């Protein structure tokens, strides 16, 4: 049932495209372009019909699993249902079919939506100003650290380190490096939270910032956040909030109120813009007032009801996108937030947390719960008990696929062995949660009864377990 590659459908002379006849003279570019710059032979792309293309990609889609297929409990990824109306809004010709170089007076409708989105995000987060330019979460982190960098630069302070807890996403340390910082890892304590002593030890006048997710990747709220903030601020550093877990706290707590100075949002998580199989995302950054001058340019501004891009930002950290960021994603997030409004966001968080706690309550007997602290929208189990029977978390994940359900995030956070990070989101219904519970219970039973079978999973998927080692050893990256 493998689908061939699109090139395998190719036959010389077959056409899938449709273009008007050229209605002007055809001239030879070789006559006027620098020698050797006109290609002799057209690029060897497939020659297929429209029918071939449609069937091929329809078939590929059927080899994929999306949120519309069922539960997608990837911890920290917030795979919630993507409302269809957001797709409609992003496709309204008057909104989609505008060019980034149109003068601002021609695009006031869109700018008003972006401006509103900024105001919403500021209110939701308790931050003062927002840039929408970053095109993904990691991009947002990068912009955030670059703002911090510029801030210290302007003040003439040299600070070279960024502290990152060991439970942090891999993007945090990688971002620190990219922004020219040295990443310093600190350990978590036995309750899964930032260890204050380790933090104190790491803090010195070389520290530019602490990057933190709250609730953290264990789903646990860092209760000591106010103390943490004070410690960092007292050491002259700034506090960076990784917004990956915002779905846990909408309307309940705000990074701004926790004294974070900079943060990023993941519109494709919290605000339900589709992940698209790995993007596009969007990672707006929020800052406290004193950091506003350092935001990327251009900066969206309003004056007397007119919206425009301000390029005159002498202290800006610069630019990270060719244009203004992932506009189409912003339209979707605008729709989502505006539609939910004042009361809806709170319900999102409440039900996300309820669903996660329900799963946790039901699963903690069959699987080890390494940290017992209260958790919010997600929680982490360990497959250690099962590992003792020879079945790894990877095997469990693969076995879940046989039951037509996606697996949790596995082997992350690194501080838990055989970890499974589970985030159901608010859009799963009880039936689907119960089915997930039942399946994990079944797998636990299967591990007792027939561990070899589980180790060989998946059995019913379109391909069985794939050899990743071979793929890395002998990279076959193109046809």
């Amino acid at each position, binding site marked *: 049932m493998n689908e061939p590659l699109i090139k395998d459908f190719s036959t010389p002379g077959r056409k899938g495209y449709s273009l008007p006849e050229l*209605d002007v003279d055809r001239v030879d570019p070789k006559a006027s372009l620098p020698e050797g710059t006109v290609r002799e032979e057209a690029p060897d792309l497939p020659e297929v019909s429209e029918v071939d293309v449609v069937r091929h*990609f329809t078939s590929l889609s059927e080899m994929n699993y999306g949120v519309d297929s069922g539960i997608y409990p990837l911890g920290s990824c917030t795979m919630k249902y993507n409302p269809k109306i957001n797709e409609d809004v992003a496709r309204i010709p008057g909104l989609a079919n505008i060019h980034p170089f149109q003068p601002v007076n021609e695009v006031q409708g869109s700018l008003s939506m972006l401006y509103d989105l900024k105001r919403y995000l500021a209110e939701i987060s308790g931050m003062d100003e927002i840039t929408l330019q970053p095109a993904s979460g990691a991009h947002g982190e990068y912009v955030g650290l670059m703002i911090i960098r510029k801030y210290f630069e302007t003040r003439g302070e040299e600070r070279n380190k960024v502290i990152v807890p060991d439970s942090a996403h891999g993007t945090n340390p990688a971002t620190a490096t990219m922004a020219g910082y040295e990443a310093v890892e600190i350990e978590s304590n036995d309750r899964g939270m930032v260890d204050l002593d380790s933090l104190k030890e790491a803090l010195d006048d070389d520290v530019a910032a602490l990057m933190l997710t709250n609730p953290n990747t264990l789903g646990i709220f860092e209760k000591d956040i106010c103390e943490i903030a004070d410690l960092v601020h007292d050491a002259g550093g700034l506090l960076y909030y990784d917004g990956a877990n915002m779905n846990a706290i909408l309307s309940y707590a705000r990074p701004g109120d926790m004294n974070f100075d900079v943060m990023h949002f993941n519109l494709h998580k919290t605000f339900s813009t589709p992940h698209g199989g790995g993007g596009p995302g969007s990672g707006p950054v929020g800052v406290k007032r004193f950091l506003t001058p350092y935001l990327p340019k251009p900066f969206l501004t309003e004056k007397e009801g007119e919206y425009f891009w301000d390029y005159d930002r002498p202290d800006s950290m610069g630019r990270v996108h060719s244009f203004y960021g992932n506009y189409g994603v912003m339209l979707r997030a605008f729709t989502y937030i505006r539609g939910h409004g004042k009361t809806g966001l709170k319900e999102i968080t409440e039900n996300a947390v309820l669903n996660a706690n329900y799963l946790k309550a039901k699963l903690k007997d069959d699987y080890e719960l390494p940290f017992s602290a209260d958790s919010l929208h997600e929680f982490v189990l360990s497959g250690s008990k099962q590992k003792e029977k020879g079945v790894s978390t990877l095997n469990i994940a693969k076995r879940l696929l046989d039951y037509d359900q996606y697996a949790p995030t596995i082997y992350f956070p690194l501080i838990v062995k055989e970890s499974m990070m589970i985030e159901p989101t608010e859009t799963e219904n*009880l039936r689907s949660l119960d089915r997930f519970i039942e399946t994990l219970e079944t797998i636990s039973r299967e591990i007792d009864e027939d561990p070899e079978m589980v180790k060989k999973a998946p059995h019913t998927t379109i391909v069985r377990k794939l050899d990743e080692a071979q793929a890395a050893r002998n990279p076959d990256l193109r046809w």
Partner: protein
Amino acid sequence: MKYISNTPEEQKKMLSDIGVEEITDLFSAIPDNIKLDKPLELPDPISELEMMNLVNERASRNTDLTEADSYLGAGSYDHYIPSIIDHMVLRSEFYTAYTPYQAELSQGTLQAIYEYQSMIAELTGMGIANASLLDGGSALGEAILMALRHTRLNKVIMPKSIHPSYREVGRTYGGPHNADFQEIGLSGSLTDLEQLEEALDDQTAAVIIQYPNFYGSVEDMKKIAAMVEKQKKTLLIVAANPIALGMLTPPGEFGADIVIGEGQPLGNGVNYGGPYLGYMAIRDDRRLLRQMPGRLVGKTEDVEGQEGFVMTMQTREQHIRREKATSNICTNESLNALMATIYMATMGKKGIEEVAYQSFNKTRYLKGRLEGISGLEVVNGDNHFHEIWVKTEKPASEIFSELYDKCILAGVDLSQFDEEEGLLICVTEKKTREDLDKFVSAMEVAVNE
């Protein structure tokens, strides 16, 4: 609007199974002093119907490209997009999926990316392409960082013939890593090659060339490549318009080390600048490959020997390598890459050539007709792909606004970039001769009025 399934009764049942009374009990870990004690100041929720009315009203405040005849380009190009692309992309198995962590349930995304990588590699004449980056500008930023890491040098030659925004992004990315950017001036609409030759030395990590360049002209790639080749370590980074590669020699044939660019022209709409996709392709070189940022998909086999696809070479990436990763990039632009893949498949060998040639020839036609207008100069002469740089005595802003009154978006006013004056005019296959003739008439009036 609301997408929650739990009813109050179900909530009650679940709470009781958890062992708490109220939903708010689940939030007790949040200290009171930071717990929000008032509702967010947001508008009230609205229904789908109200939402559609609201956004349609906003849309009506825009002038969109169906309402005006647009000659805007400068990095965002209005090519024809085959109808099937959106139909395929609306298959929810594609657009509601995450990064393909579980390969066995993600073969669709993975195979599509493998096909994308293959076609990008073919188009650019390079050995290896990655699964996409965030956009053209940030792809340039990543390429610069890659060159710095690879060469351990820090001089980067970045001529002014490169898109001003890309240069800004490049400077941002290079900044923390002590990149020493050298800008090279223009000679007409081309990079001043004498200056380039002068600046290029054995401390040079990379020379960046845009192809065609920002002003629409095609650089003398052979000459440039020969210069770069003289410096053993220096990498040649080419920022190429992928549609132009339907007509232009692929950078790989000139010995480019890294080719990056904006993939938007491949079947993605103009969409006010995003989401687009950056593409990146490199020479088939294991050392370079290890420095490459972004996802890669490889072909492999399952336990039964059946072919399948996985994300691979992940030890380069942030989730494995953490602070030692080649980039912090995680989410890329998979769905946009899928659109580009479907575009390349649909257009195919002949179609992409035809789009390129039509764009070129229509531009040539317009150029010829514009040259007949006194008081107007086409800086490119006959060296252009689908953009031309037009100078007039009158400020470009005045010309733009006069043509806008006739529902024509005459081009990008270059003065906004504070370097040059004039209009950058873009013509794609979507224009008809009749459109172009109207443009010329309007321009005649505007220039000479």
